[in-house]
């Protein structure tokens, strides 16, 4: 696919944009990759409580040099801290919290998202690929809201927002909203619907790089 250079949002700007949509008082699980950048952009004055699958609610930032604890890590196996009011629990409790709908928001990366909200993010299905199941299937099955944050297209320029996922699914009809370098897009009963374009990006460009029909933003006339 030949594409002209469009400077959409950087990874950091995508994370910053998503952070604006996290409500005060939310219980949130952030996936590995771009989602990890989100916490530092949550607007001041909003309190967000972070959950990590390996048994911590109330996760804080990485430790100050020299103060790390080998027994205090996050699901990405990185060292973290526990904030005042934090709680530790075992994995079955942690996933009861996830599956039982006791968390407000899960933010994940994606290989593909379909117009019906199917998510594929654990395997390319290729013979030499090691599947990475992890906790994503539980998160999308149970957390109240699921946001995906991803580049709009693959490095090869293929759309990641597609009519139907070709990679193995993580969950069926589970994604609520997608944040990409080019746009913010809702999954609606009618398919992909634009919420907003990134600065300097036009609708036609986003449609051209989306593998399914993109509906204009609510209230927009075109």
């Amino acid at each position, binding site marked *: 696919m030949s594409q002209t250079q469009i400077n959409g949002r950087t990874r950091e700007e995508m994370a910053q944009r998503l952070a604006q949509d996290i409500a005060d008082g939310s219980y949130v699980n952030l996936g590995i990759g771009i989602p990890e950048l989100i916490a530092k952009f949550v607007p001041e004055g909003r309190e967000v409580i972070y959950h*990590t*699958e*390996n*048994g*911590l609610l109330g996760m804080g*930032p*990485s*430790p*100050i*040099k*020299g*103060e*790390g*604890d*080998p*027994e*205090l*890590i*996050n699901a*990405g*196996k*990185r*060292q*973290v801290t*526990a904030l005042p009011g934090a709680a*530790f*629990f*075992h*994995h*079955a409790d*942690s*996933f*009861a919290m*996830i*599956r*039982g*709908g006791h968390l407000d928001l899960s933010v994940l990366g994606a290989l593909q998202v379909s117009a019906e909200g*199917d998510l594929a993010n654990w395997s390319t299905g290729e013979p*030499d690929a*090691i*599947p*990475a*199941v*992890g*906790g*994503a*299937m*539980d998160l999308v*099955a*149970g957390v109240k809201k699921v946001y995906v944050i991803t580049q709009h297209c693959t490095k090869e320029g293929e759309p990641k927002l597609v009519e139907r996922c070709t990679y*193995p*699914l*993580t*969950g*069926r009809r589970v994604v609520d909203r997608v944040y990409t370098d080019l746009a913010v897009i809702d999954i609606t009963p009618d398919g992909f619907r634009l919420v907003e374009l990134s600065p300097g990006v036009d609708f036609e460009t986003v449609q051209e790089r989306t593998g399914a029909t993109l509906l204009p933003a609510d209230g927009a006339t075109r």
Partner: protein
Amino acid sequence: MRSKVCASVGEVFGGLKARGVLQDGMTVHVGGFGLCGIPEQLIIALRDSGVRELTCISNNAGVDDWGLGLLLQTRQIRKMVSSYVGENDTFERQFLDGELQVEFNPQGTLAERIRAGGAGIPAFYTPTSAGTPIADGKETREFYRPRDDTRGFNRAGAPAGHPRKIEYVMETGLFADLALVKAHRADPFGNLVYRKTARNFNAMMATAARVVIAEVDEVVDLGAIEPDQVHTPGSYVDAVVRTVSEKRIERRTVREA
């Protein structure tokens, strides 16, 4: 009651051998998440016991030279039941060569299967993995989501207009011949207290095996653990051994002050 505290890992494994617990082809729960909270000295002893054809139930497979990676190097593991197994070249090679069988479980499904196994529940339904390849070949059934079902409609039938049923996947409980777990503190009764995120899978695995061995940082006198603070009651635990753990860190992440 006779104290469950053993003087050394060697004594623990001597006891296991004498009782005929160590058998080729056995299934072993190995606690930990990544390298955090793994029973590192018990894993080394399991390797040195020479037992083979193991099925290891463990969220991860260690790294090449630590944790379960040690038993992969010696090819003592035939099958892994895990959720994520990156960061290990030995694993990758054996998996791609087809030498090592792997059953991938969603992380929460794995945790709940072990909890269920320990609780005497042979199977349960979960929404996780419905519509994905992980559910292939498994029994599925539709239910109302529990939080949409405060009136017990899953038994009685719901009135029109109630939220629709969704698909659930049946998963089975997991019970092992042996569980190797890591805790922070134990007393002579085998009561266990875990520390921070090293609790992870250890707490469920300690309930779900015929024989349960705990490797701990410290052993305290009877009564020194507040009954309110016990995480795993001693009845689940067969033997306790104090070790000096290396507690390796997989991804050292710090920030400047």
